[in-house]
């Protein structure tokens, strides 16, 4: 990644901390599929490598759903247990290793959100929640320019795009979406269904 070449507020570009570019390269280059194979063979160092490379973003993904930092860490802790125990069932033919890992994180986060009813305290008043809800447009903008998902989401009807992105990223339910949009539950369901099938056609 090239440094951002802007000056702000009016000074020179200065960084006085220490950065370890070697560490960054090593972390970026982690082969997740290979690490999962090593986990399946009982190599704890491979699990540690996945932790170092992926745990920060796993916490980020979990926290967008469960909002509270403590719960997000619990999600990630549970996910690593699953990764370690189920690594042998990872099937590279079904998708990348990273996709498998994040499916585990999202599954655990949504299960806490839907079933465990531990989110009764409003996250807005929670000092440990440092992640606020992002708009669907902001999220789509963060997708890489070369992402076909971005291109296809941008081709969807606006309301379908919004519902699909907010649901996936923040774990909103049909009921919450219907309340927000002020439309019946059945309408939300049919918008999402139509949007999902249009997305499938676009993405193949």
């Amino acid at each position, binding site marked *: 990644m090239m440094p951002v070449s*802007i000056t702000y507020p009016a*000074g020179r570009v200065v960084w*006085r901390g*220490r950065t370890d570019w070697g560490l960054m390269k090593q972390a970026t280059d982690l082969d997740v599929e290979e690490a999962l194979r090593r986990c399946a063979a009982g190599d704890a160092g491979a699990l540690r490598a996945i932790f170092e490379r992926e*745990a*920060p973003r796993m916490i980020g993904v979990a926290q967008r759903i469960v909002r509270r930092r403590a719960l997000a860490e619990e999600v990630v802790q549970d996910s690593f247990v699953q990764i370690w125990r189920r690594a042998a069932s990872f099937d590279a033919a079904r*998708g990348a290793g990273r996709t498998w890992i994040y499916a585990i994180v999202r599954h655990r986060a949504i299960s806490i959100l839907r079933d465990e009813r531990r989110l009764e305290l409003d996250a807005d008043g929670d000092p440990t929640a*440092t992640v606020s809800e992002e708009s669907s447009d902001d999220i789509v903008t963060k997708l890489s320019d070369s992402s076909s*998902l971005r291109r296809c989401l941008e081709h969807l009807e606006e309301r379908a795009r919004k519902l699909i992105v907010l649901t996936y990223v923040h774990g909103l339910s049909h009921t919450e979406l219907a309340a927000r949009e002020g439309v019946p539950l059945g309408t939300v369901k049919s918008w999402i269904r139509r949007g999902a*099938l249009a997305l499938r056609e676009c993405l193949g």
Partner: protein
Amino acid sequence: MTDRDDDRDALAAEYVLGLLGGAEAADVERRMASDAAFAQAVAAWRVRLADLDMTAVPQQADEALWSRIASGLALPSAAPAATRAAPATQSGLLSWLWDSLAFWRGLSAAAVAAAALFVMLVGLRPAVVAQPAFVAVLTTDAGRPGAVMHAYADGRVTLIPLEMAPIPQGRSLQLWSISTAKPAPVAIGLMDQVRTIRLDLRNLSPDQIRQRFAISVEPFGGSPTGLPTGPVVMQGAMTPAN
């Protein structure tokens, strides 16, 4: 595509989007075990939407979390210890606590309880004022005070901008902790607008809190690499308030 294919794919999409409740999700998972075409449809949706996971802003993952994972799995201690960041700088007691599953389990429950209690206290008495334990003045290149950070005994930190230009369009300001115990700066907060923010530094050790903090300009949503990529606009060190 037949209607039946559409029904199957729409249900798989709802499942992957996280829209299904406990009972419906359990039905879907049973079907995945017995219906290969349906399991394939679910896998395809996971692949289609996976890029969205990469839009999450990475959060600090510290050694305490790894210790809980390693202890919970009873992993061979040699593997994580070899790569642990800074055990040599910790006192014997701290090292012991680091490794003690019971301690971290207890702390985790206590942290959740404390968070709940704090929410209630804030709800009842929004004007509670505490004395900060540490203060940092972050200064700009020109040596002018740009922001003040207050760290409280319970681990909360506030960052109050004093003199900051608006954040450039399409950029975010990111706050970093720079510690000699860590090989690289650690991202601890993201600001998409200039305002007072609250951070939770309960997971940083006192040694880390005493370290330097810096704010850099990053692409919107934070550094894509997990390390500072843009110019540092201000920085400073925490010092005890008294």
